[in-house]
């Protein structure tokens, strides 16, 4: 995965360094050339100055100069004056102009000049290494800030690029933080021209998705609602039929089972679509989870009794913020599920535990349990765990756990499927946020 920020920072800093440093090199070379000319001009002045020296004095052959300079004044073959560091013989051939020579263990730049009125040859010399070091030190002082400034420039570029990319990061985090069911458009108050088109496209897409989902939801809800009336009529007809024919007839029993299953499916579909965020927000109030669980257990007790299952409720009263109808639906689905998948005479434990920040509602059974491979899929719509026990097939439709997870999501709660504390079986745990 490539990062836009890294690309921008690295390539801008690299370009800057490349051009600055190449320019510094170029500057170094031209400054050194200029310094050379400057030093040559100084030698020229020195030669002019020296040419007028009074050479009548005996000490004029041993004049003290700095280590970096030397001179000689010749008249024909005779040395008239010289610095104390100059050799006995002529520093250079008597050709006017700049040259190089070696003496005293160093390389020297020389300038030879003929002073016609006085009939003198003046030769001045300067050590090349010292003049180079001097020139280089001056030039490098001008390059140093360039080098020291690079980290600062790099930091500035990093800050600027990061700041420039912030709207993109904001958009990315807005999209990331959007809940799965949140189909509201993205607000572009702090947007940039470059992102407007992107935000517009995303919002258009969300709008279309929302319309499609709304249509699907309405269709399912309407269909389920419309099916209720013929279903009730069908149940009445079935009841009447049971009086006319043998109620234990195999075909009749299957018909009855089929109708029951269809009625359950319709009820479940209605529950699923009734639990919408809008309705939920309006009906939310403080409820005692323990009390509601107790009521649900009482309602469903005949089912457990029919299968001679042992059901136990442990825990204390715990307040949560919830929609009563939705919470009842969640509980009834979990309990019906446990009842259905636990064999006759099995054990079911419903627990309500205070975990500090959360309230945990758990429903554990000692049924066959759910294989690990299917654990992630049980919350999918219309997904049913394969069971060899035929009695568990009816009248489930594979929507129960989808409804549970849907309602949990609305309550900002999370559902976890764990292994039960019995030797076998499953434990469904719903963690509700504690009411503060």
């Amino acid at each position, binding site marked *: 995965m490539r990062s836009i920020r890294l690309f921008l920072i690295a390539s801008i*800093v*690299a*370009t800057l360094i*490349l051009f600055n*440093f190449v320019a510094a*090199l170029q500057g*170094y070379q031209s400054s050194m050339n200029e310094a050379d000319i400057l030093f040559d001009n100084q030698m020229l002045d020195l030669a002019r100055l020296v040419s007028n020296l009074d050479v009548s004095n005996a000490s004029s052959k041993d004049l003290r100069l700095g280590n970096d300079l030397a001179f000689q004044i010749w008249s024909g073959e005779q040395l008239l004056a010289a610095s104390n560091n100059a050799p006995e013989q002529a520093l250079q051939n008597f050709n006017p102009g700049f040259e190089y020579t070696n003496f005293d263990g160093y390389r020297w730049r020389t300038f030879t000049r003929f002073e016609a009125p006085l009939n003198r040859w003046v030769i001045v010399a300067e050590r090349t290494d010292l003049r180079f070091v001097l020139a280089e030190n001056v030039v490098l002082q001008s*390059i140093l800030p360039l080098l020291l400034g690079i980290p600062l420039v790099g930091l500035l570029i990093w800050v600027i690029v990061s700041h420039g990319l912030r709207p993109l990061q904001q958009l990315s985090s807005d999209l990331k933080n959007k809940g799965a069911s949140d189909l509201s458009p993205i607000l572009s108050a702090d947007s940039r021209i470059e992102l407007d088109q992107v935000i517009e496209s995303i919002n258009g897409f969300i709008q279309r998705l929302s319309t499609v989902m709304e249509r699907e939801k309405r269709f399912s809800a309407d269909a389920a609602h419309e099916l209720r009336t013929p279903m009730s009529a069908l149940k009445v007809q079935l009841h009447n039929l049971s009086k006319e024919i043998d109620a234990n007839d195999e075909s009749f029993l299957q018909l009855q089972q089929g109708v029951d299953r269809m009625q359950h499916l319709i009820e479940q579909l209605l529950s699923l679509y009734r639990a919408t965020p809008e309705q939920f927000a309006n009906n939310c109030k403080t409820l005692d989870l323990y009390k509601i669980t107790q009521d649900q257990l009482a309602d469903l007790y005949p089912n457990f009794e029919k299968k001679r299952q042992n059901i136990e409720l442990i825990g204390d009263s715990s307040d949560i913020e919830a929609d009563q109808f939705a919470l009842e639906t969640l509980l009834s689905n979990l309990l019906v599920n446990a009842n259905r998948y636990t064999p006759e005479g099995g054990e079911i434990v419903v627990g309500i535990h205070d975990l500090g920040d959360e309230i945990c509602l758990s429903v554990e059974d000692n049924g066959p349990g759910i294989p690990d491979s299917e654990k992630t899929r049980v919350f999918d719509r219309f997904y049913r765990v394969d069971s060899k026990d035929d009695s568990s097939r009816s009248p489930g439709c594979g929507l129960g756990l989808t409804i549970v997870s849907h309602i949990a999501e609305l309550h900002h709660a999370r559902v976890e499927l764990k292994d039960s504390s019995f030797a076998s079986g499953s434990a469904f745990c719903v963690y509700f946020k504690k009411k503060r």
Partner: protein
Amino acid sequence: MFLNAVVLVLREILEAALLISVLLVFTHLFQKSWDRSFVLRTSWVAYSIVVGCLGAAAYSHYTPQISEMFDYVGQEIFNASVHLISFILILVLVFFVPSNRLAQRVSRRSQVAALCMIGIVMFAIIREGSEIMQYVGGIASQAENFTPVMLGGFIGAGIGVSTGVLLFYGLINLSVSWSFRVSLILLCLIAGNMGSQAVLLLTQADWLPYTPIAWNTSAVLPENSIVGHLLYALIGYEATPSVLQVSIYLLGIILIIVSPLFGKAWPQQHSLAGEN
């Protein structure tokens, strides 16, 4: 001192930076078609550079002892070996790596490729790093040279690394197939350069016979000019190469051209574009 430091450091850093950039482009290109072993993430470069730096420090520390080996040509032999190993690793890389997920034993071959790339970068850092350390260590120990050498070193390193970074981003922003082609061609030239350098060092150590000079372009393009240094880093330019050097250089290029990986670069139907 300043210019010498710039040139030496730039030459060494540029050579390593170009190599690393090209290999990083390969990592980038093959991320999807090779097995996702940990070394195929970009972090492998960091590990190789760290190990390479340690190796370079050890090598420059033991240089006096190494030089005395093999009748005082130990350093030439060591450097030639490092060049040869890199040359062979590049050949292994282009001959045995998988170019798509359909190739057999992708996992094993990806690991071989990753190890080759780690080896190539590590040896490049040892080679170039030890030269810089010896030069800078030697010159900068004299107080008056410290500032010019350090400044020159930083400027040389800055130009070298920046060129590498821009080459990397330039290559990965090309279309996938062109990025692959240009990287392979650069890898060809780098391999030829490695082989040719190894021959030069072995000739200097008298392990290989002297062969006549193939050509002399020092009048047109001197080796010690700025362009000469750049071309040396990029394609191993030498103004007066021997016949044997040129032969090995060409052999390296030919071997890469006949490799299966190079074959994938040109026919349209095998281009990597479809895979990435």
